[in-house]
């Protein structure tokens, strides 16, 4: 509830509409409340007293009142939808901003799918609830109270029926919701299971087919499918119960009113027209109660969404800028680690990096070599300040990395990841993503260095060919080459290549390496790899083993002095070439 209330602050900029909408509703409700009484009057005094003038006056009154009511109703919808959807759009905007400001640390624990559901689904749900709230928050109570008031005015005796029927109705609704709720939770789970099964089969269709397991999968799917059917039937059966029960209440109440009211009318203490009006009010009250309980149910369910939204908003942004961050246009590219320790989760075993020290001069070609889990990628992430070390400092151009503005770092340090993400746009725009000023010549040059030019030219529209969502129209190797071209075009002084060529064959990889070397001279380049052949001719090789630097130097010195390097070399190359 707290989370939901917090989100109502988004209505503030739309205060006017937020207030007008419910006020207009009051107009509509009051008209609705007056109509039955006027009708009763027409029957009681107009028809009963044979008074045509009275009838006409009252009819005119009714018509004017309903016009006012219609205007109020439409107006309130208009303002309520503007207020609620504007608030929802603002929430969505802030969420997306927040997501963009989060650190890599946060993304380790968040899944993309989850975030998107929050930005789209959950926010839509909140928007609907706000709309519902603006329209019902005053309406329902006013109708209920107003109708009860009018009912008592007509006949206090008859109103005793309300005293009897309302509590029973409330209890019944409560019982149905209480019973049905667990079933609806189950339906969600069963739907998830069916979706998972389908998704798995779509993803692993080759495995299924190559092991000839179609029948087995069909059988497996049949189970979750059947389960979904069973759960659905059980849950919806409760839903089906609601309307008939509700109608029964209204109808039984009507019978009671006719009975008690009829007796009174026969004695002469009540007019027939009043019975009619009373029945109207009674129906109003009972349907409003039903509406209120539905609104409460919807609101309750929306709280889950509000909580999820709140969770994102309350995430800590753990990479923060200094108050007066240093802005540098082009850095030189010196990188230094001083006693750096790092861990992703404090208190969980050994630190991922322990006491890392090294100095890299601008323009060096550096390889970070080590086996899976040795900490290579982590070192690179610290250079780009995706994370902060838990102790020690990272320096760039002899200045603590924390003193720079984040933007300076991002504009000067390029990282090319193993998992290449491209955006749905033309190939050209993808390559110039990091450098909007890049000319066609720059773009082609970058693509050539990344060995992407040839395959781009083979595509129907060359550089103007579209990359589809998720880059499904490109192979893994092509994606990697484009993402490399993108980083080259951005012209970063420091470039980090994290296993960027893993999907390429050795020959292409070698070509790229050679042209990279030739074309980018005064850049500091870090190459992360576990293949010694990739590292071997770098200026500096940093050998990482289990989160510690085991050796720094070039190939010649390491092969002599570093036993770990030597053993990697022997296992990967020596045996094969010799």
């Amino acid at each position, binding site marked *: 509830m707290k989370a939901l209330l917090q989100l109502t602050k988004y209505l503030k900029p739309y205060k006017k509409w937020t207030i007008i909408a419910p006020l207009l509703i009051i107009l509509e409700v009051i008209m609705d409340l007056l109509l039955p009484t006027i009708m009763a009057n027409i029957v009681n005094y107009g028809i009963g007293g044979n008074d045509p003038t009275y009838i006409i006056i009252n*009819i005119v009154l009714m018509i004017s009142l309903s016009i006012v*009511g*219609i205007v109020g109703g439409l107006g309130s*919808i208009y303002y*309520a*939808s503007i207020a609620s*959807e504007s608030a*929802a*759009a603002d929430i969505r905007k802030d969420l*997306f901003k927040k997501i*963009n400001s989060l650190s*890599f640390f946060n*993304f380790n624990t968040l899944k993309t799918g989850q*975030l*998107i559901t929050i930005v*789209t689904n959950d926010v*839509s749900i909140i928007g609907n609830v706000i*709309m519902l709230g603006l329209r019902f928050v005053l309406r329902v109570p006013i109708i209920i109270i107003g109708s009860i008031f009018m009912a008592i005015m007509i006949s206090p005796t008859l109103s005793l029926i309300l005293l009897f029927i309302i509590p029973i109705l409330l209890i019944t609704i409560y019982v149905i919701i209480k019973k049905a709720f667990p079933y609806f939770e189950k339906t969600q789970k069963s739907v998830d299971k069916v979706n998972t099964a389908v998704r798995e089969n*779509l993803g*692993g269709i*080759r495995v299924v*087919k*190559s*092991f*000839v397991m179609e029948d*087995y999968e*069909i059988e497996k799917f049949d189970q979750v*499918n059947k389960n*979904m*059917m069973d759960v659905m039937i059980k849950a*919806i*059966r409760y839903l089906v119960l609601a309307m*008939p*029960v509700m109608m029964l209440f209204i*109808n*039984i109440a009507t*019978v009671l009113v*006719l009975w008690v*009211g*009829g007796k009174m009318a*026969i004695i002469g203490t009540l007019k*027939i*027209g009043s*019975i009619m009006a009373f029945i109207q009010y009674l129906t109003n009250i009972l349907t409003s109660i039903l509406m209120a309980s539905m609104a409460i149910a919807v609101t309750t369910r929306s709280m889950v969404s509000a909580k999820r939204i709140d969770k994102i908003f309350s995430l800590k942004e753990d990479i923060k800028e200094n108050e007066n961050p240093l802005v540098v246009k082009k850095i030189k590219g010196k990188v230094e680690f001083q006693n750096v320790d790092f861990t992703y989760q404090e208190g969980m075993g050994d630190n991922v990096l322990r006491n890392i020290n090294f100095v890299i001069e601008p323009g060096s070609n550096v390889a970070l070599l080590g*086996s*899976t889990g040795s900490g290579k990628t982590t070192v690179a992430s610290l250079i*780009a300040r*995706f994370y902060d070390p838990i102790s020690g400092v990272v320096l760039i151009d002899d200045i603590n990395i924390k003193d720079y503005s984040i933007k300076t770092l991002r*504009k000067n340090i390029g990282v090319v990841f193993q998992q290449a993400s491209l955006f*749905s746009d033309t190939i050209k725009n993808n390559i110039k*993503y990091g450098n909007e000023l890049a000319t066609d010549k720059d773009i082609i040059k970058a693509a050539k260095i990344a060995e992407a030019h040839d395959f781009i030219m083979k595509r129907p529209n060359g550089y103007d060919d579209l990359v589809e*969502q998720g880059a*499904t129209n490109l192979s893994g190797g092509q994606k990697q080459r484009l993402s490399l071209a993108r980083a080259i075009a951005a012209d970063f002084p420091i470039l980090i290549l994290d296993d960027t060529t*893993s999907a390429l*064959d*050795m*020959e292409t990889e*070698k070509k790229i390496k050679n042209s990279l070397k030739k074309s980018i001279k005064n850049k500091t380049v870090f190459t992360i790899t576990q293949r010694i052949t990739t590292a*071997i001719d770098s200026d500096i090789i940093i050998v990482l083993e289990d989160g510690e630097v085991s050796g720094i130097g070039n190939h010649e010195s390491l092969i002599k002095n570093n036993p770990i390097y030597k053993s990697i070399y022997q*296992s990967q190359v020596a045996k094969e070439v010799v």
Partner: protein
Amino acid sequence: MFGTRNGKNNNKATKPKETIKRIWNYLQEEKKPIIVVIIMVVLSTIISVLSPVLILIAIDEFIAQGQLQSLETLLILLAIVYFLTSLLNYLSGFLMVSVSERALYKLRRDLFNHLEKLSLKFFDKNKKGDLMSRFTNDITVISETLSDVVIQVINSVLILIGVGIIMFIINPLLALTTIITVPLFFFIVLKIGERVGRYYKDRQDVLGSLNAYAEERISGIEVVKSHGKEDESIEKFMVHNSRLKEASIRAQLYSSLIMPTNIAIGNITSILLISVGALLTINGKATVGSILAFLTYSKMFNRPVTQLATIYSSIQSAIAGAERIYDIIDHPIEVTDAKDAISINKIKGDVEFKNVNFGYLKEELVLKNFNLKVKSGEQIALVGPTGAGKTTIINLLSRFYDLNSGVITIDGKDISKIKIADLRKTTGIVLQDTHLFKGTVFDNIRYSKLDATLEEVIEACEKSQAHSFIRRLPDGYYSEVEEEGSNFSQGQRQLISIARAILADHEILILDEATSNVDTRTEIAIQKGMKKLMEGKTSFVIAHRLSTIEKSDKIIVINNGEIVESGKHAHLIDQKGFYYNLYKSQFDN
């Protein structure tokens, strides 16, 4: 055929009659309950149409005349009638839920079964997300309509007829007064309904593009951040966002219009009735009770009108959804057993490609006049640059695709004449992209042999070097694998899938970059296990790292879909050709 999902006419049905008939067939399998439901709906409708007459009698005859006794008898009858209506309504809904859910179950079953049988060509062409959405969105749309439609249509039509008749019997003038607003009413609701449908569709489209945008920027967040482009991302997002806002306001506005319109039209009818009724009563042509009865009837009459108008648009979108599902179910299965397909059981493992031509798109050949003869027990390495056609060769051997021309034989038999299931049971594949299913590690490994014991599984894992890491998992072989194996590293997933192949013990073995994601030390260990596995078997190995295939019986070097060289390692090196250069580029530094 499936590319038009985002087309403008997404919600328009193209062949509604046929589709309705097919869905009706699902329902027809449940004839008995449906007949019972129909009878109950008819009964309850008749009763509910008659009950206002009882009220009319109660007021005009008994209250006005002061007959308390008769009033009480009548009210008891009325209470019973009301109770019966509710009971019947509940029971018919209760039954209908099972009927429609069973129909949906069958629809999902048929869709899934057909999907499993479609060839890989289909999955190449259609996006996973699109297929997923047919299972979720389209079926949901149908389900929302299916359970309500039968009951509501019968109910609405009957009420319209019944109430109409009764109104004319009671008082033709008042009946006319009530009905006069109906055409206007129907027209307004229908128009609003159409707009609501259209605006919701618009909103869905805009939401879809916002969704796609957010997904791309969030899953590529490291690229956005590492290029310092957060602001640009947010700016573009805001464009999508404000479009969504406008579309949502419009959709909200129109969909919320229905209720006040209902109320307003109800009020107009009531006022008309009272006016006309009052004048008629003064002239002695109507009674107070009849005005009251008509007030009830006018509400009863308006409800089915709204219902029919809204049902109409929901039926429209349900049919469109159903058509998208039938698109798949009607998609022909391309790779099927030949009519005279033969069974094979144990094979020797001779494989031959004769003049094979193949392209994923008919006009773009990937393999050109490809010939290859492999003797049983040989280890064949397929080598060549990215995109040369290596993976295609093994795709064809398992008959994931059919050839453009030429023949592939196993033990001299044309594989297109062999039962597909038998063929695939003789060939084991370990792919570059490994796929694990939700379940335990144990279940995942014995996926290839469902009756394997734990001992057999452990033995296979020891050979593939997976045993040592599985043993260290909290629940060992019974540890849970999450969806798509996301809780295992790529290397671990690959070890598991190698174990799977070892356990299956196929006569022909295909390893497509099977060790590309494990580090070198592990790879060397796996090689040992592989060697044992491949002993005496025909095997095809694709590897980028040439060091892993040097000892193959025959190395086939492929470039642009053709064999450029073949022979043993030493022989190819001596030739100083394509292979020599490939090899040199890897090791010569």
